[in-house]
């Protein structure tokens, strides 16, 4: 039993998880379909989005340098981090230099990827998650299970109970509005009182040095503008050349994620407060994080760097819909996570992720930047095979099968024997339990094969 299999079994045994995942992902799937149908030539828009990302990924260096120069010109400070630890250290140092006791954090998957929540806690800095779902996750002391809806695995009833247990002044009425109000009471003061605001970035605009965030709650704006310092942590692949490119990507992102034409709040932050500005942070720091991205680009995963973190692949994935996000075990779940996690956390402990996929191709079909996710997953399978990580039974089984399949005459003999053996076990057309195929017959019956193979019957007919 692997860790993955254990997590899958736990997920499948949880009926509430299934309801919660189906509710959110099912709604997203339906809404996305409507939004895509209404969009004039979504296919051409996908092609353009992929081309924009491919262009910047092929020219990352020059665009990042342009971004750095533009951001500095706008008054921001730019930091470069090779690794997750380095990125966290930079953030903590900025917080300490600012004398920060409390930080307000606006949801960022990159922050999760580099382990920033944990690093802040270790540094003794109070962290307030201001995205509603991240707030729920923080109260429950869990990890996000989806990149758009971190708390999608929880039902409304579970959230209500959690708020009642943890909020200072919780809701009384069992309505969504009352629950949201309870979270607002809890969070608003913390946001306004924070010393530092930390966000990720949906896009970095090279020619203006702007950082774009999208939210539906307005929590990013409230977390990032009042504090004295704003820190952005962003993966280096978030770069786009200019505003028109960002706008195109935004149209793709919102529709693919939730089916909305645009998010409620779409904000571009360009530098800190300037003389004459009425508000804004005194300092703005942008930490550009590699954490394996240039390695991915060099090692056949450049297409994965197109990803704009919309979540459409997981919303439409038959496997994710059954097991939810936590079973994947990494920061990123679903098909995109199955490609990213082996790159971020190593292949050996994550080889299951590449295999736990039916290769049905739906994720690639809905991806707004046309990432060939099944092909990339098959790439991990090949690497796993080459590196000897696949189970011995699998290697032997496939080896023997392939050896026989390369000898057609012997193969015909083999199929004749296999058919006879299966027919001995079959009853009334079906096999209810087959040795070595328990994975099949535990859950479904296997049809009993015909008495003679196609090739045998065909040859006998040709001889007549």
């Amino acid at each position: 039993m692997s860790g993955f299999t254990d997590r899958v079994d736990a997920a499948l045994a949880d009926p509430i998880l299934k309801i919660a995942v189906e509710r959110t992902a099912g709604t997203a799937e339906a809404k996305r379909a409507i939004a895509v149908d209404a969009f004039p030539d979504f296919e051409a828009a996908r092609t353009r989005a992929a081309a924009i990302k491919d262009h910047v990924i092929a020219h990352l260096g020059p665009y990042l340098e342009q971004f750095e120069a533009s951001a500095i010109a706008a008054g921001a400070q730019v930091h470069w981090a090779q690794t997750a630890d380095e990125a966290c250290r930079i953030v903590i140092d900025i917080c300490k230099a600012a004398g920060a006791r409390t930080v307000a954090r606006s949801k960022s998957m990159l922050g999760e990827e580099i382990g920033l929540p944990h690093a802040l806690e270790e540094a003794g800095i109070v962290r307030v998650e201001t995205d509603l779902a991240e707030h729920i996750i923080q109260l429950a002391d869990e990890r996000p299970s989806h990149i758009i809806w971190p708390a999608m695995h929880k039902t409304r009833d579970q959230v209500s109970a959690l708020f009642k247990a943890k909020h200072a002044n919780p809701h009384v009425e069992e309505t969504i509005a009352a629950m949201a109000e309870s979270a607002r009471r809890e969070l608003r003061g913390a946001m306004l009182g924070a010393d530092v605001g930390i966000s990720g970035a949906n896009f970095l605009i090279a020619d203006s040095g702007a950082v774009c965030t999208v939210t539906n709650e307005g929590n990013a704006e409230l977390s990032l503008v009042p504090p004295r310092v704003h820190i952005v942590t962003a993966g280096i692949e978030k770069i786009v050349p200019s505003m028109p490119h960002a706008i195109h990507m935004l149209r793709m992102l919102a529709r693919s994620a939730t089916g909305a034409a645009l998010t409620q709040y779409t904000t571009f932050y360009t530098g800190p407060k300037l003389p004459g500005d009425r508000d804004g942070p005194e300092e703005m720091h942008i930490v550009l994080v590699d954490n394996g991205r240039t390695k991915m680009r060099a090692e056949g995963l450049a297409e994965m760097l197109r990803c704009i973190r919309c979540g459409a692949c997981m919303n439409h994935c038959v496997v994710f819909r059954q097991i939810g996000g936590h079973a994947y075990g990494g920061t990123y779940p679903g098909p995109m996570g199955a490609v990213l996690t082996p790159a971020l956390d190593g292949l050996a402990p994550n080889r299951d992720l590449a295999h736990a996929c039916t290769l049905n191709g739906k994720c690639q079909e809905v991806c707004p930047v046309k990432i060939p996710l099944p092909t990339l997953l098959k790439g991990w399978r090949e690497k796993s095979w080459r590196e000897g990580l696949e189970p011995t039974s699998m290697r032997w089984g496939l080896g023997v099968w392939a050896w026989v399949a390369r000898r057609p005459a012997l193969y015909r003999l083999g199929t004749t024997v296999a058919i006879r053996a299966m027919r001995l076990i079959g009853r009334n057309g079906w096999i209810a339990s087959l040795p070595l195929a328990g994975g099949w017959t535990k859950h479904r019956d296997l049809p009993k094969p015909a008495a003679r193979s196609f090739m045998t019957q065909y040859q006998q007919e040709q001889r007549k």
Partner: protein
Amino acid sequence: MSANVALFVTCLVDVMRPRIGFAAIRALEAAGCTVVVPQGQTCCGQPALNSGDRPHAVALTKQTIEALEPYEAVVVPSGSCAGTIRCHYPELFDDDAAWQSRARAVAAKTFEVMAYLDEVCGWKPEGVTLPATATYHDSCSGLRELGIKAQPRRLLNAIDGLSLKPLSGAETCCGFGGTFCVKYPAISNAIVTEKADAIDTTGADLLLAGDLGCLMNMAGKLHRKGSKVRAYHAIELIAGMGDGPAIGEEA
């Protein structure tokens, strides 16, 4: 139309349900083709390819290319195997120009059987009658790699008495996924359970699809749950063999 076509039987049809191969021959002959079954064929190599075992995948690919090269066209009663030959064979020879051009040549002339009958032959079944209601599952590889969606429905609509009922989630994977279903049986079961329920909900007499792997998965689940829905490869009905035993019924 009198093409000299090779039938690539597929390993699953060869062992589990030869009727599908004979149905393909019957329909192709009715469409005016001369059908040959090359003896050098076994499996297209997909199990090795999808397991990451590139050396064995390449070996089986070369064997299959050699077996299929001499013919005008190659016809396959499976979207998944046809997709492997059409879309993935050429990808295996990035460093071998000679084999890559041979792979491309075979890929270009390989067709899924219903797409071939409909699009290349422009053929429809004539005089085939089957009073029944059926629902159709779009198997993923055929649908997304080869664009097979309208072709089987056009052919099935030419059968007298057969009415097609839409399947909710017809384009959603059934959970078969080749070795996936035995490597991760619990996930596969959860997926196919939903698929079987959706099939039952249609109230159709028959479940049709174009891939035996998916059909065995869905039919096996339907049988285990006690459903009365009977499953066939669509080509069996199209060839006028829909009155024979369904999957899992004794001849």
